[in-house]
């Protein structure tokens, strides 16, 4: 399908938010799904899969960093231009299965797609709803998308790997008012130690780099918390034809240590953390 670019905004250093008009698809989009974008250059043939950051009215939003030739080209597209797209693709978060208390845990570019989950969880819970939504967001450098989470989350905690990178925004945003340096797992441990984070009856939705997710998965498993992770993978087609993004998952139905191969693009990108075989990812 062809999609109209509505906006392509530079929202932080090297970070852009793209809004495309896709009336039919926007309505069916689920948090955790992704959309393939195709660039109008013959040398940039492969689809670029991006996690959907939000979908409302007639539009889908994605947030991306300029990291290669494809995203550089994408950043130069202007409102009114038309590109090809395919999606929403894949299986999103099972929000109905999330507990009343939800921890949204994001790292880097895995953070923006969780906003869509935050909004849906808040809407599903209703205005009075007892849902407690806490966002834990880990940045490498200066935070750029954390203020958006405040609209839907009860508490938002931010951490950056770079000292002082997060001021001044962080200081005003972090629900504890503390400026923190480290990874999102450091943040989780610190909050538990401080008594800020009670984990009983909580479930986790997370998106971020593999080492982060692996650590979050172990953290969740030690505490008996269900976690759903939206994974990223290099894809050749993004719709289940090429088998370029197939990963190993524990087969929970089979007795013993059986595993199955599943495609990140169609069976995922959201998988239960306990099923993921991390070695090899």
């Amino acid at each position, binding site marked *: 399908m062809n999609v109209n670019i509505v906006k392509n905004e530079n929202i932080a250093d090297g970070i852009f938010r793209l809004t495309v008009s896709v009336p039919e698809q926007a309505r069916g989009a689920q948090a955790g799904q992704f959309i393939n974008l195709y660039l109008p250059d013959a040398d940039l043939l492969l689809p670029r899969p991006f996690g959907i950051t939000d979908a409302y009215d007639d539009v889908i939003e994605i947030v991306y960093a300029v990291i290669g030739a*494809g995203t550089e080209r994408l950043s130069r597209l202007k409102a009114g231009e038309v590109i090809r797209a*395919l999606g929403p693709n894949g299986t999103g978060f099972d929000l109905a299965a999330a507990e009343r208390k939800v921890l949204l845990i994001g790292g880097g570019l895995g953070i923006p797609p969780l906003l869509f989950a935050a909004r849906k969880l808040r809407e599903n819970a209703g205005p009075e709803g007892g849902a407690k939504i806490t966002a834990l967001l880990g940045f490498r450098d200066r935070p750029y998308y954390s203020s958006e989470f405040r609209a839907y989350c009860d508490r938002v905690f931010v951490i950056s790997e770079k000292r002082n990178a997060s001021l001044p925004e962080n200081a005003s945003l972090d629900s504890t008012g503390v400026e923190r340096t480290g990874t999102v797992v450091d943040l989780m441990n610190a909050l538990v130690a401080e008594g800020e984070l009670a984990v009983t009856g909580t479930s986790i939705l997370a998106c971020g780099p593999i080492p982060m997710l692996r650590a979050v998965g172990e953290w969740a498993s030690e505490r008996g918390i269900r976690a759903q992770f939206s994974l990223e993978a*290099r*894809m050749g087609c993004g719709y289940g*034809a*090429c*088998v370029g993004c197939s990963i190993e998952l524990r087969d929970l139905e089979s007795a013993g240590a059986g595993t199955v191969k599943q495609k990140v693009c169609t069976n995922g990108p959201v998988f239960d953390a306990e099923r993921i075989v991390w070695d090899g990812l």
Partner: protein
Amino acid sequence: MKIQICGMEWKNPVTTAAGTFNARESGRRYDITALGAVTTKGVAPEPWPGNPLPRIAETYGGMLNSVGLENPGVEAFIAGELAELKARGVTVIANVAGHSEAEFCAVVERLDETAVDMLEINVSCPNLYEGGAVFGADEAAVAKLTRKLKRLTGKPVMIKLSPNVTDIVRIAEAAEAAGADALSLINTLVGMRIDLRTGRPVLANGTGGLSGPAVKPVAVAMVYRVCSRVKIPVIGMGGIMTGGDAYEFLLAGATAVAVGTAALLDPEAPVRIVHELAECYEQYGDPHKRKVV
């Protein structure tokens, strides 16, 4: 655009290339019965896990893959994808994978008992052995395998040839002499990309197979040379993105064509190419009645 091939009639000369088609996912996106046939992903006697990730890299005008023939095994294929395709009345070419003569024979023997219409023997996947070595680089091995398979099945046997050889014509002639009913070419070209920062290959497997429009002139040249030397039908493939590209292969002597990478970039590409090819037939005439002059 009807063609006769190995005793079958196809409504048009377009099929899919192995490893780029999925009955459920492709079937959701276009009318797969509008193709002459579909070719399914390589299937081995037992499930294969394939190669580690990343398996995909972009290149100028194409892509590298090192999927390594991940597949669920022949029994799962028969119960799943094959059943689904035959229920829809689709002509099916099953791509057959194996590490050895015995494995190729096991799959062919099993598929002989099914409704598969044709067997494509993948002796040319560059992602199974280090450096992209292929079974199909040795003409004696190809001839011996072809003879064995022909004794195991009455279904048409098509040998898929590798471009990673000194002279593809010698392999083609060996397969024909051994009784192959058809040939398909080309499989992917061995390629590599290296990450500038880490100094490591981009693909976990080191090398992969290059496909996409970048390989098309290589494929056209090989199809042309092979078609001028063998009498059995050839299915031409390699970087077909448009109906015009498909027509070029038919003009080079191919009886039919397969669309591969284009379908990864646009799921509906095979059926779009059928429509565009029909326009080429109107504009330039039946390519099977023409030849390169």
